[in-house]
């Protein structure tokens, strides 16, 4: 049995997308970091950092949203989210790390300003520096998508999921992605997938 911990309005949404994409059966515990639920012994035994999401899969437990996704793809998504060939496997690992190290810092910096502050409380220096920092990162995506519809091979993989779900931070906080036209087209294709639409519906009712 798979149990995912973390309310859907958190990075847990990333993992819900994978679970829905693979059609796996899972239990969803909407642990909320604001209510202290993450400080229970049960949760801290999975993640001593007390952050969501976390996952239990039988005897296996782990945290880190993009890592959970990589684990689920590798274990349950062979030939679909997890490519069959070595080149593809190397590439999906690369893009997952790229999403975490290059794309998430500017996206998360803007999201903090966007969610927790009103427009006039916003730290303009952080807000603008993050957009500027995102430019070269989007250039890398654009170069990589010149001749292909997806980041790895000919179909949607965990590389596309992990990267587009992080790119969403920039989109949501008003960075205009359209000048990176290939990236924008690819991004829309990814986030419009039915499995992610179901995640969007869950957010509305949460």
């Amino acid at each position: 049995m798979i149990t995912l911990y973390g309310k859907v309005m958190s990075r847990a949404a990333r993992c819900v997308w994978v679970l829905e994409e693979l059609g796996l059966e899972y239990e969803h515990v909407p642990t909320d970091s604001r209510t202290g639920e993450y400080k229970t012994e049960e949760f801290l035994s999975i993640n001593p950092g007390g952050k969501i999401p976390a996952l239990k899969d039988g005897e296996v437990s782990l945290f880190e949203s993009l890592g959970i996704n990589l684990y689920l793809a590798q274990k349950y998504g062979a030939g679909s989210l997890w490519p069959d060939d070595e080149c593809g496997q190397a590439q999906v690992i690369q893009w997952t790390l790229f999403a975490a190290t290059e794309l998430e810092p500017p996206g998360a910096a803007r999201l903090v300003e966007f969610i927790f502050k009103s427009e006039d409380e916003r730290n303009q220096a952080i807000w603008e520096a993050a957009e500027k920092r995102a430019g070269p990162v989007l250039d890398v995506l654009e170069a990589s998508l010149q001749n292909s519809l997806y980041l790895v091979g000919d179909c949607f993989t965990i590389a596309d999921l992990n990267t587009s779900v992080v790119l969403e931070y920039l989109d949501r906080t008003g960075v205009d992605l359209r000048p990176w036209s290939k990236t924008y087209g690819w991004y829309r294709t990814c986030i419009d997938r039915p499995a992610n639409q179901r995640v969007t519906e869950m957010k509305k009712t949460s």
Partner: protein
Amino acid sequence: MITLYGHNLSRANRCLWVLEELGIDYEQNKIDHRDGSTKTPEYLAINPSGKTPALLDGDVCMSESLGINLYIAQKYGGGSLWPNDDEGRAKSIQWTMWAATELEGPVITVVVERLFKPENARDEAAAKAAENKLPSVLNVLNTSLEGRNYLASDDFTIADLNAGCVVASLKMVGFDFSTYPNVSKWLDGILGRDAYQKVQAMPKP
């Protein structure tokens, strides 16, 4: 044939550690951003961001230091750096991502602002903010190492290597690990490994 791009003072160092752990034959191309050799068309075809390290392994071409390490471990380190069991594999992925998302940010900021930058260019507020983040991060590691020698299994794996190579940077600024006794013991153990010592002894640019 494996080719690793990047010099010994770059994040390529992390990948050298893995290659040496596994005793794999490889070539190192010590391209350096300071002389423009990371911006040649040839290299940009390998990594469009122009950053190092990158790896070529036959048809496989990839960037991202910790990702390269995970790939090498999976391909060449089955049963050693890459555990045979699901739990060990899950934890190896987890600690790799954790090193990238939780640990690396504050560690690099501390090292850059306390050591790499010339004194008159240092950002004291950024250094302090990063130092304030470190206790909660290092406590996660310390708690996870309670009663065990390694992070993902009974033996040294890519989880230890990927988390360890990032924590190790704090040694450069003389960071005091005494309040994290499990981390301190674990770190001294893994940094004492022959492969790590061999990489440290290699000529630097």
